[in-house]
């Protein structure tokens, strides 16, 4: 009898447990669309009639963009979800690059993914030809109308358009303190040599300060900021054509022109007189966290910090980012004043389903309506290469400057090279070897030859 009673109790306990599990499940999947960010004012649904009524459908989105930026993403979908009735289920993950191939392999793809590297897109199309869906007609039309040929090309693999640009960024910037420049009478340099002269001037004026501060530590992505340095300098010393050949491996990774470019970078990053303001010696670049390495500028321990426009999110909230504010950025100059290469990057919207609502959402993301909605809900730190973007909606001076450079024909735009290379190189060997180049200070030739042999062995 006693045993019988215990059994009854166990049964009750199990049932209660099961109930808990089920309620937990019921709460789980409600995080769709909307939520957070500033709401988009006055949605005009006329632009959305082309997508039809999509009530009752759900589009799953998988990205590497996590909060707080993810909140702005979700807020920018509100016009679409309100007008079409479709729901967007958004999932951001820091493990995106490692997990997406796993999900594809397991036959569990998201409907839409934002892929930050054209090289990654290419390897996905090659490895999973059945999973990646070519862009639909509406998407192709948008891409051709609102983006330059170069940007369309980054989303194209073997002549087929798969992905369209989402956000964009500009990396050829040097951050500085307008106040410190004014105090010392420094002018913004307009040539590469001018930049080096300015640095020498700073060393002469302030023997106890190292002019440049840099940091390339970024968790398991450590090394990437150093690859941007090399790419920017290759564009300047070897030119965009050599850059393209280098990125597509038409010339060896350790071509003499690239070695020369890396040595030019070393003239700054491996120069004990120039680095690493407030952070230590050359080797300290390898362990200085990227997102904090510019702090020496407001603190007065360094003058110059090369980083993309999105570095503005890393400044202390009390600082004003403006030409007459506390920190601002100038264009990293070319070899001559007329030589204006521009390095940048962005994410690409890729679809893994040709369901009607997925294609509609893809089309929306490639349209100016989305770009403007996104600009409206984003405080600062976001731009798009979409030429339908209303510049007046950009809320920060550095975003406006970035958009100006991006749409100015005098600047030759090139996409981040490491992002175009196969993942094993661009997000593997390249990062690792550039880190070894900083510490323990491996020489330029060995560094590039190691990457070349990794690429040749693929």
């Amino acid at each position, binding site marked *: 009898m006693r045993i019988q009673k215990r059994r009854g109790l166990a049964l009750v306990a199990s049932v209660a447990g099961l109930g808990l599990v089920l309620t937990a499940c019921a709460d789980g999947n409600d995080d769709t669309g909307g939520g957070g960010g500033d709401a988009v004012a006055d949605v005009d649904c006329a632009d959305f009639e082309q997508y039809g009524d999509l009530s009752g459908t759900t589009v799953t989105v998988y990205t590497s963009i996590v909060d707080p930026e993810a909140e702005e993403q979700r807020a920018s979908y509100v016009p679409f979800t309100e007008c079409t009735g479709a729901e967007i289920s958004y999932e951001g993950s820091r493990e995106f690059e490692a997990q997406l191939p796993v999900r594809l392999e397991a036959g569990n793809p998201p409907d839409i993914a934002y892929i930050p590297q054209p090289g990654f897109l290419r390897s996905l199309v090659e490895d999973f030809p059945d999973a990646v869906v070519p862009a639909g007609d509406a998407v192709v039309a948008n891409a051709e109308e609102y983006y330059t040929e170069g940007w369309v090309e980054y989303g194209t693999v073997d002549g087929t358009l798969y992905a369209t640009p989402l956000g964009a960024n500009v990396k050829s910037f040097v951050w500085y303190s307008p106040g410190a420049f004014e105090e010392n009478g420094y002018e913004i340099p307009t040539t590469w040599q001018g930049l080096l002269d300015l640095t020498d001037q700073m060393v002469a004026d302030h023997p*106890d300060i190292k002019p440049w501060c840099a940091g390339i530590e970024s968790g398991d992505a450590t090394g990437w900021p150093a690859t941007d340095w090399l790419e920017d300098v290759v564009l300047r010393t070897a030119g965009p054509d050599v850059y393209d050949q280098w990125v597509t491996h038409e010339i060896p990774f350790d071509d003499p022109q690239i070695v020369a470019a890396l040595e030019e970078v070393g003239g700054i990053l491996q120069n004990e007189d120039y680095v690493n303001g407030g952070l230590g010696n050359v080797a300290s670049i390898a362990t200085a966290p990227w997102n904090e390495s510019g702090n020496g500028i407001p603190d007065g321990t360094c003058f110059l910090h090369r980083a993309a426009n999105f570095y503005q999110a890393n400044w202390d909230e009390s600082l004003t980012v403006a030409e007459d504010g506390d920190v601002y950025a100038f264009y990293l100059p070319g070899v001559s004043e007329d030589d204006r290469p521009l390095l940048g990057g962005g994410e690409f919207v890729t679809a893994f389903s040709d369901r009607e609502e997925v294609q509609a959402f893809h089309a929306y993301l490639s349209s100016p309506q989305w770009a403007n909605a996104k600009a409206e809900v984003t405080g600062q730190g976001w731009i798009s290469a979409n030429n339908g973007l209303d510049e007046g909606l950009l809320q920060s001076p550095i975003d406006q400057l970035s958009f100006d450079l991006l749409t100015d024909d005098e600047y030759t735009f090139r996409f981040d090279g490491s992002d175009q290379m196969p993942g094993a190189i661009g997000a*593997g060997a390249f990062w690792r070897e550039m880190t070894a180049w900083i510490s323990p200070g491996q020489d330029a030739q060995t560094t590039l030859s190691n990457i070349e042999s990794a690429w040749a062995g693929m």
Partner: protein
Amino acid sequence: MTTVEWLLRPDSTPEKLLLMVLAIVLFIVVMGAILLGIDRLKRAPTWAVVLGFLGPTLLFLGFGLLYPGLRTVWGSFRDARGREFVGLDNYVTAFTEGQFQIVLRNTALWVVLVPLAATMFGLVYAVLVDRTRFEYVAKTLIFLPMAISLVGASIIWKFVYEYKPDQGNVQQTGLLNQLLVWLGMEPQQFLLSQPWNNLFLIVVMVWIQAGFAMTVLSAAVKAIPDDIIEAARLDGLHGLSMFRFITVPSIRPALVVVVTTIAMATLKVFDIVRTMTGGNFNTSVVAYEFYTQTFVSRNQGLGAALAVILFVLVIPIIAYNVRQLKLAEEIR
């Protein structure tokens, strides 16, 4: 919406609640049937009992361990995408390329140093605090790190090692470097100076595992019969020689278990390396390199080969562990 669809994808709250009630009812019915059924089946045939108890285990071991294990071995003989047979190429790469030789060297360093250091600290500590007034507090202190995840511990130690230059008004934020500065020395970049940086990572693992070693060994020390100790004392043994000739031999089985368990945990170390250096500055180990090769470089063949190497390295430790357990049982 058809009934089936409604059952599979409930949308509204009432539907979800109803589904929950349905699931609970189903659960009660199944459990009730099983519990009642067991009472009826007083005399089940032996094979049914064996199958009932062993079957699920075998099934899970087969699908969860054996099958993936064999797949990994098979994959290690194939190329980066798992398409073509490449023979022993992946193993040749793993053993001959400089980058991987460093990985193997580091792993060897970890496997030798962590178990020895952690066990030694644990043992000495256990013996020193044994039967003292503050034994409980002292033991709790050293056991606490066990409760911290490896990633958490790595972040803590990363702060300890943090480096700021000795320059102008720059303040040190790392504990160790602040101590060095107070002593009038230059701050050091602990995570960069090769090959010492490996030792600074190893310290983290020792810090965590010493608590485990201490707990097990302390229990073993307490289990040494008093008459043996008394007899040894009458024979004139004290201090170090007591430790050397009585304590250590008496707890030998426990020592072996502790050393081998820590060695196995160390072979699998991944979190510390990933969190503290990301495998840079020549600090990578096999378990971390296996991950980078498989998921970052997308070289499945090489990744699988590294996993197999790790597996082969663990085998002798497990075999030794099992043999010692058997010997211990025979003595008993």
